[in-house]
């Protein structure tokens, strides 16, 4: 198998980095800047300082886990870059990032918004529309990522070989 190309290390690294960066988009944009929801805001609505600080604790745990996903993704990317059987394909990597971001929106949306009901995208009576839109964005990102990964199948350039 010495001559095989293996894209899976790059896809796994990009997917995990996409999950992490998608999580940071959610946490920074929705939890902190727009303050549309917090981790437990459907169970414990943010109505006073105590409830805000309790939600802040759980938001912090969410961000710590998101950081961990990003760190593991970086480690996988570093390892992939050291292998000579992994094609250094931009299309594959960008597609994997999109796949990961989409997986984040889909999985987190299904589990937290619909299954466990611990928060919604917007904590208003009409939250279902925004929750469905969040899931739909996940499906679109997954499809875009899948197409980009497939388009990178022919890439065979190994890291550091471009421009030689």
């Amino acid at each position, binding site marked *: 198998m*010495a*001559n095989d190309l*293996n894209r899976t290390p790059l896809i796994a690294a990009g*997917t995990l980095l996409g999950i992490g960066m998608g999580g940071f988009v959610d946490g920074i944009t929705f939890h902190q800047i727009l303050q549309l929801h917090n981790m437990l805001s459907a169970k414990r609505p943010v109505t006073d300082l105590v409830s805000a600080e309790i939600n802040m604790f759980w938001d912090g745990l969410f961000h710590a886990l998101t950081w961990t996903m990003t760190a593991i993704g970086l480690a996988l990317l570093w390892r992939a870059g*050291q292998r000579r059987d992994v094609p250094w394909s931009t299309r594959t990597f960008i597609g994997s990032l999109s796949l990961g971001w989409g997986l984040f929106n889909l*999985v987190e949306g299904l589990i937290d918004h619909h299954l466990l009901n611990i928060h919604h995208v917007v904590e208003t009576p009409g939250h279902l529309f925004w929750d469905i839109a969040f899931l739909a964005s996940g499906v679109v990102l997954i499809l875009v990522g899948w197409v980009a990964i497939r388009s990178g199948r022919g890439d065979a350039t190994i890291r550091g070989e471009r421009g030689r």
Partner: protein
Amino acid sequence: MMMRNAMVKLFPSAMLFGALVLSPGSARACPVCDQETGKQVRAGIFDEDFGRNLLAATLPFGVFLGIVAAIHFEFPGGRRPLRPSRPDGPEST
């Protein structure tokens, strides 16, 4: 192997950092911890729902790791025996 060595070297620093974060000194730096608000916040975090909330917060990330592991080991079409022969072969790390 290189990564394992790096992790072994970083482990004492990580333990020291963790000990400092969890030390009483960091609690003293908290401006509301000894006040009524801080006590209510701690009671609200570590209430009877703590286990369920912890599971809820961590469950999606377990699913993510499972999906990425599946991609890493089983991704369809990940391997492609098209590369022309190289005299030096792949580098094992």
